[in-house]
């Protein structure tokens, strides 16, 4: 027996329910051209992986875009997806930052169903999470919360008791700390 990993790497059907796998954060620097997003999405979907969050934005250099993709699944499968993304002509670089030293932030807008009665308590919770109040209406509040995804989850959890009318999250963006490049 050698030191090789014996099994084939890529089960198309995940052994666990998808949400039980840790979230991987993959950062892709791409040419800013039509079709690039479709090409990358196809690499994920062909393998049966679901993209959980996706942020596309202009990169520092013109002509390039940055995609930050959150996905769950077997690590080996995601390695293969990463290799196949790197193979795309329009991909400059593709890294899985899951285990890297990174800063990761997300923003959410939360419309909370709160009138005069619960407003004080809601605003107190909002203040605790450092939220910004974007809109105040007779029957609702729009709050903006930023931070890591866990903080957003906690804030949204606390607002559930008032009732959440609408929720929009940007998805996570990441950057490596110090000299490391994203």
């Amino acid at each position, binding site marked *: 027996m*050698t030191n090789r990993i*014996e099994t*084939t790497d890529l089960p198309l059907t995940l052994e666990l329910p998808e949400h039980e796998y840790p979230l991987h954060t993959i950062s892709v620097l791409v*040419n800013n051209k039509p*079709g690039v997003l479709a090409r990358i999405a196809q690499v994920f979907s062909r393998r049966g992986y679901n993209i959980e969050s996706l942020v596309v934005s202009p990169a520092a250099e013109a002509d390039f875009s940055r995609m930050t993709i959150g996905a769950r699944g077997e690590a080996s499968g995601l390695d293969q997806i990463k290799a196949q993304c790197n*193979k*795309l002509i329009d*991909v400059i*670089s593709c890294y899985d930052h899951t285990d890297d030293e990174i800063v990761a932030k997300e923003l959410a807008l939360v419309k909370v169903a709160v009138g005069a009665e619960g407003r004080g308590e809601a605003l107190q919770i909002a203040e605790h999470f450092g939220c910004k109040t974007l809109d105040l209406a007779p029957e609702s509040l729009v709050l903006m919360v930023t931070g890591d995804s866990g903080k957003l989850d906690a804030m949204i959890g606390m607002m559930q008791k008032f009732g959440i009318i609408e929720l929009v999250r940007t998805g996570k963006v990441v950057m490596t700390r110090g000299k490391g490049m994203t």
Partner: protein
Amino acid sequence: MIATEQRDGAQTLLKCLEAGGIEVIFGYSGGAALPIFDALETAGTNIKFILTRHEQGAAHMADGYARATGKPACVLVTSGPGAGNTITGIMTAHMDSIPMIIISGQQVTWMLGKDAFQEADIFGITMPIVKHSYLVKDSEDIPRVTKEALHIATTGRPGPVLIDMPKNISQGPCTASLDVDIDLPGYHPESSFEVDSDAVAAAATALKASKRPVILAGHGAMLAHAGPELKELAETCGIPVTSTLLGKGIFDETHELSLGMLGMHGTAYANKAIVEADLIFNVGSRFDDRIIGQPDKFGRNATILHIDIDPSEMGKMIRPDLKIVGDAKVILAELNKHIEPLETTEWLATLDGYKKRFPLHYKKQGGLKMQHVLDVLDRLTDSRAVITTDVGQHQMWSAQFNKSRDPWNWISSGGAGTMGFGFPAAIGAQIGRPDDIVVAVVGDGGFQMTLFELSTAVLQKLPVKILVLNNHFLGMVRQWQELFFDNRKSGVDLEGNPDFVKLAESYGAKGFQIKRPADIEKVLSRALEYNDGPCLINCEVVKEDNVFPMIPAGAALEDMIIEKPKQKMAKPVGST
């Protein structure tokens, strides 16, 4: 010479293709491609245009041309259905890493996405089956796009590149210089030629420690032109060589170190060599499921070395102990500086024993056998002919009995397994190599998928030999039904086949007939000498025969069956 200010997009395109090495275009005209077809007449290039009878035929011809010559091939079709008909051809080329440029005419840019006549989003449709693709939206981009497309198609791991060309773009003026720089910041195939010397040294050390090594040569070795380096390695060290279906010919199959093809219908001795080896040296194969059987059992007692130009192939199917990413020729040349003869006498003797115990065999009595026809064909052509095939029993027997001696002579749809590939591929191969004997080995099923290209072959006066191994069945599927589905024949009986000889004659081709084993040599000799255009040899072979050895899909290589077992077999767990 057309002055720059008078050049339109289409003329620019053809000039750039010619400058990039395109000598032949296979295609079919249509409205959205009109400016490009007109430019074939006006651009002043020496590009030869071959009008086919169907766009799928054009794509397979280009594919065959590329596989026979090593040069990039080009397809030109119109929008919508024209482009759609190339899809099987593009997929076939993509699966087997064939350099190909597909130019599709397209609706004018302001009609895109509006369901205009013959509009199809071919850029989107083909995305998963191309190496890269372009939708050109500015005539001035044409020189850069064409140059990039050719560069991408032919470098690194080759593949098809599609250029979708709206009619107003090909018709519009183009003033851009033909000599532009490419702009591909994410594509660096030149790194394939940088050898990881540590990895090569580790490979040399692993080889030295090995007592039972085997080289597994794949298509990547062919595409890298690594034949001489592979031969030096095998001969110097005394390592036997087996090849994949697409690697056939990269190592002379008549060489005493050759084990022939491995895998599902490979030779027993090649598969036994893999099972018993202590080192498997994969040079440019992607460990396809046809050759590894059950992945967790493949080479589990062996050290596995893997050379591949594509990093995403590393560990995709089999995790190697040592990977070397890069060009096989360059890596083997470097490795050969560190090698020395190995003590493999005993190992080679063991394998010779297997060759004697489990030879490829067939019975010459009891009707006309495909194997017999192919065996005689191989002898009459001294194993030097260019052979193209479709997919199925005839393909596997051809792979077994046609001993490929030279690279670029074995042309078969491997990954995609495309029926209807063989005949048009032979046309493309013959156009690329007019002086060589080209034989399309096809079944009666596959041939009928693209036989209309007889017109193309006759018009071009190509001396292609079409060997129709006619068992009136879809033989390989019937074999599976016999072995695994209680011999229930479902959807495999090709009743209603035409008289292929008369059919060939009606197209203006020559027809031959082989009905008895005694006819084989005489008729094949006449057909091989016939050079006055294409000829078809209809072989009325026995209806029911099975290809062995066989590794049922998903089974381990050691579970290979040499002949039909008496007891009923379980349905294979693998895909097909």
